[in-house]
C-alpha cells in the first residue's frame, strides 16, 4: 500500500515547484491574449515557388497603413508553404481593406499562386465579450461542481471535501495556465475549453476517490484513523485512476500527434494543454486532494482535543 498521507510533503513540494516555475516563466514570457480575445488581425496565404517576405510585409504595410509582420511556415506532412501576416494593433480590418490587400499581393506575386487559406479579424469589443463569457463559464463551473460534490457527499464531511476538491481543481487550472505560459500560447478559446474540461475531468477523478472514502467510512471500524481511511481508499481506486487517465491521455496524445504532423493549429493548442491537464488532474486527485483533506481533518481533531483539555 502506498502511503499517500505519509508522503504528502513530497507531493506538496512537487506542486509548489511547478507553480514556482510557472511564476518565473510568467515574468520572463508574460502572458498574452489571443486576438480572439484582445482583438487584432491575422491572415494566412498559401503559396508556391519563392516569395520575398520583406516585400510582402512592405506591400501589406502600405496598403493597410498599419505595421505588418510576415512569417513563413511549412507544413511537415504536406510540404505546403504559407505566409502569415500579423497586423499590428488590436483592431480588425474591414472587408474593403482586406480586398485591397488581396489584390495588391496577388498583383505583386503573380507566380506564387497566392491563396487565402485562413484569416481572422476581431474587433476588441467582440473579443472582450468572448473573454468575459469564458471566465464567467469557468467561475460558474467551479461553483456548481463544488455545490454538487458538497451535496452528494454531505454524509461523510459536508463542506470540507467540497473545499478540498476545489483546491485540487484550482491546482489543475493553475497547471494548465503554466503550460500556456511556458509554451507561449496566447490564451484563446481552447484555454477556456481545456480549463472547463479539466474542471470536469479532475473532479470526476477526485469524486471516484471520495466515493471510495464514503463507502469505506461505512464499512471500516468507526475509530479508524482518518489518514488510514484515506490511504486505503486511494490505493483501492488507484488502478482505476491510472488506467482511466492513461486511456484518456493516449486518446488525446494521438490527436495531438496527428495535429502536430499535419499542423492543425486549433487542435494543437487544444490538445497540448489538455494532455497536461489530464495528467495533473489525475495527479491532484490522487496525491493532493486526499492527503490535503486528511491534514484538514487532523487539524480539526486536534482543535477539539485542545478544547477538551482546556476544560
Amino acid at each position, binding site marked *: 500500500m502506498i502511503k499517500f498521507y505519509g508522503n504528502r510533503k513530497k507531493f506538496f513540494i512537487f506542486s509548489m515547484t511547478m507553480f514556482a516555475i510557472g511564476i518565473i516563466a510568467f515574468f520572463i514570457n508574460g502572458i498574452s491574449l489571443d486576438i480572439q480575445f484582445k482583438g487584432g488581425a491575422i491572415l494566412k496565404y498559401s503559396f508556391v515557388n519563392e516569395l520575398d517576405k520583406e516585400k510582402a510585409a512592405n506591400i501589406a504595410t502600405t496598403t493597410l497603413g498599419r505595421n505588418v509582420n510576415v512569417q513563413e511556415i511549412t507544413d511537415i506532412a504536406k510540404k505546403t508553404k504559407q505566409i502569415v501576416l500579423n497586423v499590428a494593433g488590436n483592431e480588425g480590418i474591414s472587408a474593403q481593406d482586406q480586398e485591397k490587400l488581396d489584390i495588391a499581393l496577388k498583383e505583386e506575386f503573380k507566380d506564387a499562386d497566392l491563396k487565402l487559406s485562413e484569416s481572422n479579424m476581431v474587433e476588441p469589443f467582440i473579443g472582450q465579450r468572448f473573454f468575459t463569457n469564458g471566465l464567467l463559464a469557468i467561475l460558474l463551473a467551479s461553483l456548481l461542481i463544488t455545490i454538487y460534490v458538497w451535496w452528494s457527499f454531505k454524509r461523510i464531511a459536508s463542506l470540507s471535501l467540497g473545499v478540498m476538491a476545489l483546491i485540487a481543481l484550482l491546482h489543475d487550472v493553475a497547471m494548465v495556465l503554466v503550460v500556456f505560459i511556458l509554451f507561449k500560447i496566447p490564451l484563446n478559446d481552447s484555454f477556456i475549453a481545456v480549463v472547463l474540461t479539466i474542471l470536469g475531468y479532475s473532479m470526476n477523478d477526485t469524486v471516484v476517490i471520495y466515493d471510495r472514502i464514503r463507502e469505506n467510512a461505512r464499512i471500516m471500524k468507526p475509530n479508524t484513523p482518518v489518514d488510514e481511511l484515506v490511504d486505503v481508499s486511494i490505493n483501492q481506486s488507484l488502478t482505476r485512476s491510472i488506467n482511466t487517465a492513461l*486511456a*484518456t491521455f493516449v486518446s488525446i496524445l494521438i490527436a495531438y500527434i496527428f495535429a502536430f504532423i499535419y499542423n492543425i493549429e486549433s487542435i494543437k493548442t487544444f490538445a497540448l494543454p489538455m494532455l497536461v491537464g489530464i495528467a495533473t488532474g489525475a495527479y491532484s486527485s490522487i496525491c493532493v486532494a486526499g492527503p490535503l483533506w486528511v491534514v484538514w481533518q487532523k487539524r480539526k481533531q486536534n482543535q477539539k482535543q485542545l478544547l477538551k483539555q482546556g476544560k
Partner: protein
Amino acid sequence: MRFGKQWFFIVAIIVVGLTYLAFNGFDFVSFGGTGKISGAQDMRYGIDIRGGVEAYFQSADENVIPTTQQLEQARTIIETRLDSKNITDREVTIDKQRGVILVRFPWKSDELEYNPQTAIKELGETAKLTFVEGIDETTGEGGKIVIEGKHIVDASHQFNQDQTTGQMNYYVKLVLSEEGGKLFEEATGRLIDKKIAIKMDETIISNPTVKTKISGTEAVIDGMESIESAKALADKIKAGALPFALVSKSNSQISPTLGKNALNVMVKAGATAFILVCLFMLFYYRLPGFVSIFALTMQVVCQLLALSIPQYSLTLPGIAGIILSIGMGVDANIIIAERIKEELRSGKTLGGAIDVGFHRAFSAVRDGNITVMIVAVLLMMFGSGSMLSFGYTLLVGVILNFVTGVTASRIMIKSLSNFIPLRNTFLYGNRRAAQ
C-alpha cells in the same frame, strides 16, 4: 433482473445495427415511406471544416449604435443578399446589446472562386432600394428609377376585411417623404395599369401594377398572399431605408481545402485512438474489456447519430470532444471491471461479484459523469463558435455513457457469464491460482 444467453447477441445486434445506421443512414423512401435518417455521410460540418465565413457586421459610423429596429432592417438586407447569392445554408443572428449582426455561412462546394472578402464587403454595402418603371420583365434590367430608398419614411404591413365577401386583404402601407410623394404622384399618374418594380440592389422583391394615381405621401401595395408575405415585403422596403452602411471588421475565413484536410486527419486520429483504447481494454480487462468494446462502439456511433440526425454542426474541437469521450467513456467500464476483480479476489462467486461490482460502481460513475455534464452544459451556454460543438459532443458522450458503459455493459456481462466456458473467473481478472 436476469439476462439469459441470448441477451449478449441482442445487444451485439443493436450495436451492429446502430453502427450501420451511423455510417450509412437510412432512407425511408426506398421502403415506401418519407424522410430519412442522416448518417455520417450526411454530417453537417462546421465552418472550420467546410471552409467559409463568419463575420460580425457593425455600423460603419462608430458613433452610431444601431437600434434594435435598425438591426432587424439590416438583417433583412443581409438575408436578401444571401438569398440572391443562393446561400441558403446560413445563420444570421443579432446581438442587440452590442449592436452587431453575426453572419455565418459555409463555402459552397460548387464554388470555384474563393473570394470571401468580396462576399463580406458586398453583404455590408448600403442597400440600394429602388422603384423602377419600364423594367425588362425577362432580364429584370433596364428601366427608369421612380423613387429610391431615401424617399421612403416608413413601410408597414396591414390588413382589412372585405365587408361583403369577408375575404381578408393583406397589404403594405408606405409613407413617403414630401419629395417622394410628388415623384410618385407623377409616375403613378402616367403608369396606370402598368408595373412599377421594387428592387433591392439587383433583386426584384415585388412587381405590383399601378391601379390608380396616388397623391399625397401615403401609398398601398395590396394583394399580398398572407400577413407574413406582407410583413416580409414591408421589412425589405424599410431595410432599404437604413441610414447607415454596415462594415465587418471582425470576421474569419477558412478555405475549404484547409478544413477538408484537417477533417481527414482528425478522423484518422479518432480511429487510431479508438483502436488503441479497445486493445488496451481487451488485454487488461479480458472479458469485461471485450464487452467495453461494444459499449464504446455504441457510444461513439450514437454520438455520431446525435450529430447527424438533427444536423448539428460538427467542428474540429467537436471531433476532439468525441476523441476525449472515447478516453473518458471507458472510465465506467474500468471502474466496474476493477470492482468485479476486487470482489472476486475477496472470495465472492462470479454472479455475486458482477452484481456487487455494478452496484457499488454506479454511484462513482454517476457522480463523475454529472460533474462532466455540468461543464459540458456551460461550454454550450458560454462557448463561442467552434467550441459549442465540443461542448455538445462531450455532453452527448457523457449522457450516452450511462446507457452504454453501465446498462449495456451490465446486460452483456451478465449474459456472457451464463456460458460455461466463460465462467472462468480468470477472464474477469481473478488470479489464475484462485481457480
